[in-house]
């Protein structure tokens, strides 16, 4: 079987894909397995309400950024600037609230200002995303490089805006609402995450726009000949990624009550890891948002299990993530290779 030239085999892996469901089933089984192991190992701590609550709370920010990386990757690119878009939105919204909310104002007035601040934050995300999109679509800069550049740029702008300091102690009802728990248990941020996950899944699988993203990601040339305006699609994709990142930034602002230009720089790596774990093809064109959402949950559950062992240093997580990333890639490769072999036998 090894006589088959390697390049043909990779072409085939592109053509013959696993049905999307099998990847999701696998992720789901992994999740169940991890949860069972966790309950067996830590029967008192793991299933506790406080732990489940913290799992729900912590996954939201990088989960949203993983969605952003996911849709750009499906469109054939990547977004490395998500974390810094998030930070910039958080910083600007934070500064806006600190400047315009006076403690004497009535609650409804404070609420209005907070709302405007959030809109400004999301607008900034959209603008940053459009900028990325223009660089990728109109200037033909490879997405990795374009967002590498804008990541420096956005971070730099955030540093300049914030003067390099941490924007903290956000006044008004913003943090209270952001940390509100429905039924005293489900964080509102998690609800937002679920809603966005459902919206994105529907968008990717059931709308014209979603199908176009897949087409552009699979083969930009043919999608162009199919009459799709690649440039417009790409700009919208990056804008959406920017908006998702800025929502993550606002949620983080509410959670930790502060924002800084270089917050959470490791999330870039986590985002890519989640997306690949979730079954998105790094070459573009394949993957589903449900898979990404499941991968987010898997990663957070695993990470909070690891946190329960005091003697395991946090840094082991890096090691585990790295092994998981490469392991999943190899596993997917072997499974799709097995499928090819079966198909060849049939023929």
């Amino acid at each position, binding site marked *: 079987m090894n006589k088959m030239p390697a390049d043909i085999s990779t072409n085939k892996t592109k053509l013959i894909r696993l049905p999307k469901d099998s990847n999701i089933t696998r992720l789901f089984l992994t999740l169940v397995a991890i949860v069972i192991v966790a309950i067996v190992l830590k029967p008192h701590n793991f299933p506790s309400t406080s732990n489940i609550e913290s799992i729900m709370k912590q996954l939201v920010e990088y989960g949203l950024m993983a969605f952003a990386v996911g849709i750009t990757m499906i469109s054939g690119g990547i977004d490395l600037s998500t974390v810094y878009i998030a930070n910039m939105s958080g910083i600007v919204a934070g500064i806006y609230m600190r400047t315009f909310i006076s403690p004497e104002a009535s609650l409804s007035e404070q609420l209005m200002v907070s709302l405007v601040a959030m809109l400004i934050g999301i607008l900034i995300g959209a603008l940053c995303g459009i900028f990325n999109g223009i660089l990728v679509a109109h200037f*033909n800069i490879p997405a990795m490089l374009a967002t590498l550049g804008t990541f420096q740029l956005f971070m730099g702008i955030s540093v300049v805006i914030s003067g390099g300091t941490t924007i903290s102690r956000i006044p008004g009802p913003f943090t209270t609402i952001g940390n509100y728990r429905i039924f005293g248990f489900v964080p509102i941020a998690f609800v937002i995450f679920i809603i966005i996950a459902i919206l994105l899944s529907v968008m990717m699988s059931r709308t014209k726009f979603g199908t176009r993203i897949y087409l552009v*990601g699979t083969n930009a040339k043919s999608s162009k000949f199919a009459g799709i305006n690649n440039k417009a699609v790409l700009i919208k994709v990056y804008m959406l990624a920017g908006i998702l990142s800025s929502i993550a930034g606002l949620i983080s602002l509410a959670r930790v009550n502060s924002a800084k230009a270089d917050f959470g720089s490791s999330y870039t*790596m986590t985002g890519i890891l989640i997306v690949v774990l979730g079954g998105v093809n790094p070459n573009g064109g394949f993957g589903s948002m449900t898979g990404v959402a499941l991968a987010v949950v898997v990663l957070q559950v695993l990470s909070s299990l690891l946190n329960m062992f005091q003697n395991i240093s946090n840094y082991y997580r890096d090691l585990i993530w790295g092994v998981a990333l490469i392991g999943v890639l190899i596993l997917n490769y072997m499974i799709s290779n097995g499928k090819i072999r079966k198909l060849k036998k049939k023929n």
Partner: protein
Amino acid sequence: MNHFSIKKITKQTEFYVFLIIVALSLLIQFRSGQFFTNNNIVDLMRSMVVPSMYAICAFLAFVSTGPDVSFPLIAALSSYATIVISLNIGYKGPVIWLYVLAGVFGLLMGAFNGFILVKYKFPALIVTLGTSAIFSGVLFGVLKARRMELPSTMLEFGKSSILTVKNADSGLGSQLPSTILILVGLYIVTYLVLNYTIVGRGVYAIGGDEVSAERAGFNVKMIRFGVFCANGVVASIAGMTYSSMTQFALPNEFSGAEMTVIAAIILGGTRITGGVGTLKGTLLGTFLIVMVANSLILLGIPVYWQRVFTGLIIIVGTAISVRKSSGSVKKSLKAEVTSK
């Protein structure tokens, strides 16, 4: 006749980078009067040493395969492990053997990258992101890395200099470290291998068009594997040099270097889709980035603007180099990039 050669020069990215460098340095000189001073030039050369070594890694990876982002952590892990071992056995001998030991560690890590890339053909960015997470886990989790003193031989080596200058006006002195000799050596070896050996031409060939390279008789797998092994060794040399020059083992200071270095080599004309690039451009691109980072203070611009400028330079630089490529190249490039 002259006309033709000028035309040829103006087609090269390196030429434009060179022009930008000249213009910027004149601007800085004009604004501050401090650029063309002996201590500033020596300082710049000093700051060039480690980034230029990294640039070789990024350059070789891009020309042959794709982005490698693992070299800072290979540098950190190999140098830290070497330092720990030499402190534990109380090593007092010449520094070269420490470099060799680090080189072996680097070689192993590079081979790990190379093995996965050759065997499974995953995108280089994703694989090296994964392996750098693994290396960082080993470094901080298993070895519990932290700031540490260096063995005495490395301290002495890092302090030694081949040239000391003193600015007569400002009284500021600066030293050219001996580590720059390693840099020069690395560039000469890489240049000779790339341009005068079959393997070296193969590095370009497999990055340009893998299938044709294979048909032309190049052993694509071996060359790619070799490139990543070499990258590991160069990264470990850079790690040892960085530690020697900062006079401490600072494992936390390594990561993050990959982004600026990649930016530097792309500015220098290395094509992101592989097969095109020169060491000259690599050096010029690195010099430009280092110069911007070092000279903003001379221009009176607050340090926190530095990232804005680096980002802008990357964006404008890459946009120009993509624009510059001719129509057909641009089209195939775009198709390749979007399909990748």
